[in-house]
């Protein structure tokens, strides 16, 4: 990329490998021995009914949670470099973004400052990121008075400025109206085209159809199925995924095996 973008040119941290990762909280096993690898490239969507463990899986990947057993390993050559290692090369957008009590532009600049981007270089990156998500006009507006859709776009701008190699998104459109959701999806595709690996959860089938290259289907904390998007939606391999794709709610009728 262009000069003055110190976060860009380093060795990749992908692939990301999960090795028999489990997570327990309050004596309940919420993620059940998941083993999988995320490669650069395809947009990965994590699907599943509420309570399937989608958000937990994302937090385990991002490093916000430590697995109870198993390991989360960044296999790329860039992962070994520098303090903080891979944390600096991945970003996450939450269902409800937390905005600092300062202007929209200052929120983006804060993310850059935390990641060690020098003051001189921040201005241009902030401007570009806000431009990217269509918030340039609102740059000086306090972030907390922006609408929900604008705040989510600002969260994406914050991530964009960091130029992450991997972007995790946790149901980023769950609180938004259709127009705002559409804008967010467009920005996500912008990330994808710029070469950022997208890993996103959703419980919305329509959104998954629009965005997914591959699908991970979770149910009761287990990875039930992993398929390319085309085949997942047309001919799911497992009965659970089949029921989900046909719009039948899974969770009321199927208790988790170990509690049955």
């Amino acid at each position: 990329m262009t000069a003055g973008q110190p976060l860009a040119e380093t060795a990749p941290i992908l692939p990301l490998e999960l090795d028999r990762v489990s997570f327990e909280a309050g004596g309940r096993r919420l993620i059940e021995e998941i083993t999988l690898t995320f490669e650069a490239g395809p947009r990965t969507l994590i699907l599943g009914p509420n309570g399937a463990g989608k958000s937990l899986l994302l937090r385990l990947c991002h490093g916000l949670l430590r697995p109870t057993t198993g390991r989360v390993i960044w296999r790329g050559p860039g992962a070994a470099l520098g303090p903080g290692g891979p944390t600096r090369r991945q970003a996450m957008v939450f269902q409800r973004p937390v905005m600092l009590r300062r202007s929209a532009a200052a929120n983006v600049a804060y993310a850059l400052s935390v990641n060690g981007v020098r003051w001189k270089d921040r201005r241009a990156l902030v401007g570009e990121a806000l431009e990217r998500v269509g918030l340039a006009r609102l740059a000086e507006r306090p972030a907390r008075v922006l609408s929900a859709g604008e705040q989510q776009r600002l969260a994406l701008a914050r991530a964009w400025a960091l130029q992450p190699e991997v972007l995790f998104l946790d149901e980023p459109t769950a609180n938004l109206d259709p127009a705002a959701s559409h804008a967010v999806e467009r920005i996500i595709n912008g990330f994808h085209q710029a070469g950022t690996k997208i890993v996103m959860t959703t419980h919305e089938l329509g959104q998954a159809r629009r965005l997914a290259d591959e699908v991970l289907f979770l149910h009761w904390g287990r990875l039930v199925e992993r398929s390319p998007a085309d085949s997942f939606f047309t001919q799911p391999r497992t009965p659970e995924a089949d029921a989900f794709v046909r719009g039948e709610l899974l969770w009321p009728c199927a208790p988790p095996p170990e509690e049955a």
Partner: protein
Amino acid sequence: MDEIYAAAAAAFGLILDLDPDLGEIVVLSLRVSLTAVALATAIGLPLGAAIALFRFPGRRTMAVVLNALMGLPPVVVGLIVYLMLSRAGPFGVFGLLYTPGAMIVAQCLLIAPIIAALTRQVVEDLWAEYEEQLRSLGAGPGRAMATLLRDGRFSLVTVVLAGFGRASAEVGAVMIVGGNIDHLTRVMTTAIALETSKGNLALALGLGFILMTLALGVNAAAFVIKDVAQRRQG
């Protein structure tokens, strides 16, 4: 009843005349309490935020102790500072006893726990909301602390005001370590106590009015500033 009216009238007379003795007392009171608040804020904000954010052994205990210290009786603080600063005490060499400096130290010790304990509460609540986002952005504990203190600034104004209220209203600590010496360590609260016991109700009431007006004025100003800023910032 007439006596009280007469005293009130005399009190307003003193205030309107800008009585020099009265002015001296008011200025010294403000100097002592504002300095004490500034020092206690410099100690209390980082201390409270650190206890809220850092995980270290004894953290719970410290939080409980701080909360307990919020109720420190001023006379006890006065006594402790007196012992520390008296000629025979460990800090006697500084010769601070019966000076405004000693009063500042005493008030600072009195309100630093209040500011720290309330700050801990504010920052802990904010952290619950901010934690994932800040950790995701890569902020370490030190950075998170600075960010939360800044984002909690509206609530923290109230915290500092609580400290100022306590400092400017207390009489026990400054009486013991200051000695209520005329033209030297006499502040509003000690003067009110003295003048009342002497039966000089006009001066006591006048000082009482000023003390209340100051407290109300400072709080009202802070409220308005906070309200306007908060509405702008969301």
